């Protein structure tokens, strides 16, 4: 399955992917309306230091410990893609306890959110499309 991969030597730490993620998942077509004056809560997050930066989002693990730990069955694995049914999630944080990469977090409305590779947004991952340095790529490995 195609996943998003980051090359930390190329990541500038510009945070554009975070904004594109917030936009892609906002359900609003106008990017300015989607983002202006809002504190974004993206599913991809930059970790940064003086020397390196890199973007992190759900690894769509082959052996997804979040899915196996979820107390409600809200998380599931379908053809490699790990998705969340937010209507089932009760916000218990068990998946936060379980995810080894820190890739699942509460949404602004309560239930958890995670990267679903823009499959629910009708696009290829927008974070990748907008990366100015090709530091993140969407490919099969």
């Amino acid at each position, binding site marked *: 399955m195609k996943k998003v991969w980051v090359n930390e030597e190329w990541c500038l730490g510009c945070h554009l992917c975070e904004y594109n993620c917030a936009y892609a998942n906002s359900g609003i077509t106008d990017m300015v309306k989607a983002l202006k004056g809002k504190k974004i809560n993206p599913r991809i997050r930059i*970790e940064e230091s003086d020397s390196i930066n890199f973007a992190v989002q759900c690894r769509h693990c082959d052996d997804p410990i979040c899915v*196996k730990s979820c107390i*409600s069955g809200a998380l599931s694995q379908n053809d490699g893609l790990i998705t969340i049914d937010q*209507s089932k999630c009760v916000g218990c944080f068990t998946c936060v306890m379980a995810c080894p990469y820190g890739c699942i977090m509460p949404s602004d409305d309560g239930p958890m959110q995670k990267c679903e590779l823009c499959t629910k947004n009708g696009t290829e991952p927008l974070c990748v499309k907008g990366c100015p340095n090709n530091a993140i790529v969407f490919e099969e490995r």
Partner: protein
Amino acid sequence: MNYVIIGNSTAAVGCIEGIRKVDTKGNITVISDEPHHTYGRPLISYMLLGKTDEEHMKYRPDDFYEKNNVKTILGKKAVKIDKESKSVEIDDGSVVEYDKLLVATGSRPFVPPMAGLDSVEKVFNFMTLDDAHSLEKAIDSDCKVLVIGAGLIGLKCVEGIVDKVKSVQVVDLANRILPSILDEKGSALVQSFLEKEKGIEFTLNDSVAEFKNNTATLKSGKTINFDVLVVAVGVRPNTELISEIGGDVQRGIVVTSKSETSLEDIYAAGDCTVSHNIATDEDQIIAILPNAYLQGEAAGVNMAGGDKSFDNPVPMNAIGFFDYHIITAGAYVGDTYVAGDGQNYKCLFTSDGVLKGFIVIGDVAKAGIYTALVRNKTPLSEVDFELIKDNPQLMAMAKSYRDEKLGGTL
């Protein structure tokens, strides 16, 4: 191949999904005395809280049994295993034959002998969907509730009902709340949160000497009047089906990392078993849902002829009250690193060069990065501990680890 599973909860579902990874054809029969479609047991408190409902609590979709070609016998109890004829006897007198059997019977509430308990009209446990429905029917906004037990189940019950009733009192023999997952500081912090935010009254270091109708007299002499009583002092594993036929049981059913019991072709998984806690190197019952799934899954794969071990059980808990969250894992031994303020608290435990365990309260973001260090026994020499102790982050991991997990240069 005939697979039979006793129980229809997390370990059973893990087993079904494990079997189907290897064998898409064999017959699977599930027997459970609970009459419901599989549901997330921990969700019963969230149902009372209004955060979910019976429809959304289904642990797997409606077509789960059909899709996995599973025959269900629900609302019936397995009363006996006959290991010679390889069959299970059910309480309606029928018999189901197996080639491979999973015992995933979980646990039942433990109700200690308490004088006068018979005189109490409204007494509830808090383990099942039916318990939750009965409790919900018994309470109203004028009702005073007494909960015996300040552990995980008792306090989740409290969270579920406190806004629907007049008052909640909690009594526990222990001198602090949630002693199985918190240290003293953590217990104190969460207790004061529950007292201040919701007016919950705790009476610790005390227990009931006698009930007389709707009054409990405690050992200390204190009396508490109540309308509804919830008993949540602990659980006992359902091990009898295995012990009766000579299988190895030490508190829970003894299993290997492949979920095999000491009896041929019989496997066990979940809350009815003892696991080997890799953080303490001791055998214990680890009664948490992820453990049940992972053990069940390993059982299923092995029952179907595959090969899967679940090698790294550790206790790990995520529990929260009214958006105040707690995540803990592992063992609380060794050197400590403590941080926090009045609202947030963190304690990391290191020993033998690894993170043995941790407690985080309040700010729990990315705590899974700590959990992974505990479960993988990652040598701290490979980790920038100074960095990670403040905030869980992948920046603190070895570059090779990041390259493997996140991408790196091709």
